[in-house]
């Protein structure tokens, strides 16, 4: 079992939290079309990539970011299906069950797309 650096863990939590909270504030304060765009800001992805830059340097960093991005690509494609499914499921089953069902759908589609992308 690898040792998890507690300091690194504690540092990442506010990093991700702030990225999400700040993009929410920006979305709330800009009216209309810009607000809708900021709703899907890749905050978690950016925070993770920034976190990588603390662990790796030079060509290792490039390699790690490229690897991480390939996984995120499959996850984002699943995000799209999840968002479209959510807009239908929420209208049909209400927001609580609809959101849970669409997140379950994401958890199913994301690994599936990942293994498909690894095979090709």
């Amino acid at each position, binding site marked *: 079992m690898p040792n998890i650096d507690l300091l690194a863990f504690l540092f990442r939590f506010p990093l991700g939290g*702030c990225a*999400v909270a700040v993009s929410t*504030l920006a979305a709330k304060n800009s009216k209309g079309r810009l607000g809708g765009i900021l709703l*899907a800001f890749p905050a978690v992805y950016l925070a993770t990539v920034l976190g990588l830059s603390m662990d790796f340097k030079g060509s290792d960093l490039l390699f*790690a970011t490229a690897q991480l991005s390939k*996984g995120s*690509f499959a996850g*984002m494609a699943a995000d799209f299906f999840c*968002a479209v499914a959510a807009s239908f499921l929420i209208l049909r089953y209400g927001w609580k069950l609809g959101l849970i069902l669409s997140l379950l759908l994401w958890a199913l589609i994301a690994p599936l797309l990942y293994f498909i992308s690894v095979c090709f």
Partner: protein
Amino acid sequence: MHMIIINFRDLCLRFILGGATVAGCFVLLQFIPSKSFAGLLAAFPAIMSASVIIAGHFGNSKQAADIALGASTGMLACISCILTVILCIEHLKSWSISIIIALLVWFLSAYLLNYLINVFLEKYMGAVHV
């Protein structure tokens, strides 16, 4: 001041959701040797889920469904952002420049896609989604 107090609980929920996903992704990175699999979690729709929860809790399901539909165009923009990161890192070999270019691509494609879907909805459905 009143607005800030209402938004505070909402912001706390987002802070916890965002922080938990990033920290969870970091833990997965330590356990799983394959970096790309941990990247899946980095694409967790944290802002969208938090927004849907808040819209559903304080408003109604129709508003929550509209938010999910609006987020789907943003997700397409995120896909183009990540493709840009992969391509730029391969060809430019510079980490910071790649991230900056990818963010610009994300903004431009999100703006364009959102504009296009609004035009489409107005023309064929007679409704304007934000």
